């Protein structure tokens, strides 16, 4: 589904990604772990098409298409979803209206039927219930005045409604208490399926107790320095990242 080859990216003059190689097939869950500043969020943002980062080398193909040539909205319409580390507030637009617009844009692009306000509300309520979200959040402007946990949950709610093919979760666990973490993980697990892939970017292992990954990769200094299965995450929890960073430098 996603094939990344030698991906390098800069922010201004600063090299952040120094050659990433990664293949993600449908049905798989990949965790990308790593210390602060290793480039985890940059990778997530580059895949989503953030233009503050300049791709200086490499290729990314998504479902056989050149991902890097696609605009951010095209990527989204083709099924890529990024759960933001810092979801932004959008004044004046209700959460519900925003999401319906997004869903119908994606549906239109994919040749699916657009939902009217009533059908959409039924769908939204069902997903909200599953995520234990307060309905009052729906009529408030997007993320405005939401607590940190509410914002993260709102990202997962949007994901649940949009049903992406490739979901990238950027530090979705940060700022969540243990109950919220479980609810969010349940939301992600509900989306797992043979036709979807999920990339979980996280600093801590704890989220991976609830979302069991098929593969774990360690990103350090802009490269993937080690890959393994879920046990690698436990090893990292135990030993920290330092031993890998030394390995990368050698």
């Amino acid at each position, binding site marked *: 589904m996603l094939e990344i080859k030698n991906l390098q990216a800069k922010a201004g003059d600063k090299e952040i990604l120094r050659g990433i190689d990664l293949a993600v097939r449908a049905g798989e869950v990949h965790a990308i772990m790593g210390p602060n500043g290793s480039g985890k969020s940059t990778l997530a943002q580059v895949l989503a*098409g953030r233009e503050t980062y300049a791709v200086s080398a490499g290729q990314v193909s998504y479902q056989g298409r050149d991902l890097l040539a696609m605009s951010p909205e095209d990527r989204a319409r083709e099924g890529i979803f990024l759960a933001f580390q810092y979801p*932004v507030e959008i*004044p004046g637009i209700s959460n519900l209206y925003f999401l319906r617009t997004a869903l119908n844009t994606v549906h239109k692009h994919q040749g699916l039927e657009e939902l009217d306000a009533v059908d959409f509300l039924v769908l939204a309520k069902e997903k909200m219930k599953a995520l234990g979200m307060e309905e009052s959040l729906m009529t408030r402007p997007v993320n405005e005045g939401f607590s940190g946990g509410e914002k993260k949950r709102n990202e997962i709610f949007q994901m649940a409604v949009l049903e992406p093919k490739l979901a990238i979760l950027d530090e979705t666990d940060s700022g969540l208490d243990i109950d919220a973490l479980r609810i969010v993980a349940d939301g992600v697990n509900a989306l797992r399926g043979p036709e979807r892939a999920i990339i979980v970017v996280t600093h801590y292992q704890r989220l991976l107790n609830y979302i069991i990954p098929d593969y774990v990769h360690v990103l350090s200094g802009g490269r993937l320095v080690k890959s393994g299965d879920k046990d690698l995450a436990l090893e990292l929890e135990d030993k920290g990242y330092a031993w890998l960073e030394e390995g990368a430098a050698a």
Partner: protein
Amino acid sequence: MSAPNTMTEQGIKPGFTDLESGSAVEAFVSQDYKYGFYTDVEQETAPRGLNEDTVRLISSKKNEPRFLLDWRLKAYRLWTTMKEPAWQNVHFPPIDYQNIIYYAAPKPKAKGPANLDEVDPEILRTFEKLGIPLDEQKRLSGIAVDAVFDSVSVATTFKDKLGELGIIFCSFSEAAQNHPGLIEKYLGSVVPFSDNFFATLNSAVFSDGSFCYIPKGVRCPMELSTYFRINARDTGQFERTLIIAEEGSYVSYLEGCTAPMRDSNQLHAAVVELVALDNAQIKYSTIQNWYPGDKEGKGGIYNFVTKRGKCAGVNSKISWTQVETGSAITWKYPSCILLGDNSIGEFYSVALTNHYQQADTGTKMIHIGRNSRSTIVSKGISAGHGQNTYRGMVKMLKGAGGARNYSQCDSLLLGDKCGAHTFPYLEVKNSTSQVEHEASTSKIGEDQIFYCRQRGISSEDAVSMIVNGFCKQVFKELPMEFAVEAQKLLGVSLEGSVG
């Protein structure tokens, strides 16, 4: 009760990267001015400059009664002693009042356009191009239009039909001929000729405008509207509108404005007076889209306007709704004098400044009557290098026991080179009035746009969705036809809010 306060917000945050949003915001706000064409008609103009002869010339062109000429001359003489106001937060080079043409009219083919057949077809085509068809078959249903072209009214539709109800809707010049009693009684009763520099100038040289009179107990069955078009070069437009709603009557009045694109600035100094008697209601809506100047800030209209309504009677109500997207400079404070007990004043405003446009706009709510109420909702949008100022005054006089005001004043900044400023003045002279003021400033930057794009919404749609959401509180106050035009003007689709 809030203490008087003054505050200013400058919405500029350094370090904000403006890549994608820059282009999206740019595309959104850079739409071409569609009404910038010029109509080539034979003109009759006054010589440049202003003196007593100019005033006499205008008055005689319109064959005005003596009292009106005297009134104009009093205003002119006072004006020569006055100075331009300097307190507003806008900047422009000095205006040479002797280099303006104060009267320009298309040459009448016959004696004066008594009916549409005699109006120059070029002018009819002009209005049609502006979306205001004047001829019988194509008229906008439910809207009576008075079309003002430079200094004269060229046509008024549905006059006879309205006449059956006793409603007078005609050009100001015509009213001066046919209803001098009403003019003499009400002209200057809300905005006296001595009011302010621009209002005084207008009182001396006003050319045309609309006059509406709604008799006792009549609910005007259609929207009344005036469409103002500046066409001639180097002219000023000085129209005067007077609306009188007798006891228990109701009228909704709309006003639209456009002008050709020109490199030089043109002055527009209008005066609007509204009078609402006992239990009467006037709803006044404006879509102001005068030529705003080009992207470098060259040219454009100086829109210096005095608008004021008097809720003279008990339970009377005046609502101002304005969408201000045009003009190089807007200086305008549609206000309400709430004289009657239980009277209501409302002000809903969207002001957009883009490129180098400047707006200093707001309202005054003067509470005199007991239990009078007012609501102010102001939405300022700044883009490019635009500077947007809200200036509002709420005054609760001693006798206005139990009066209430609610003000909400929101600013939206698109990009990082524009500014928003808020100057609310509150003055409360009794202990039972309530005044509430809320203000907010938000900014649309690259982060918001990227977030929307990541959800599949294009930058253009994202910006228009956000802008539309920001304005919907005001748009819903507009009559339907105008709401559509307003949204189009802001480049926004009609679907803007939930449910």
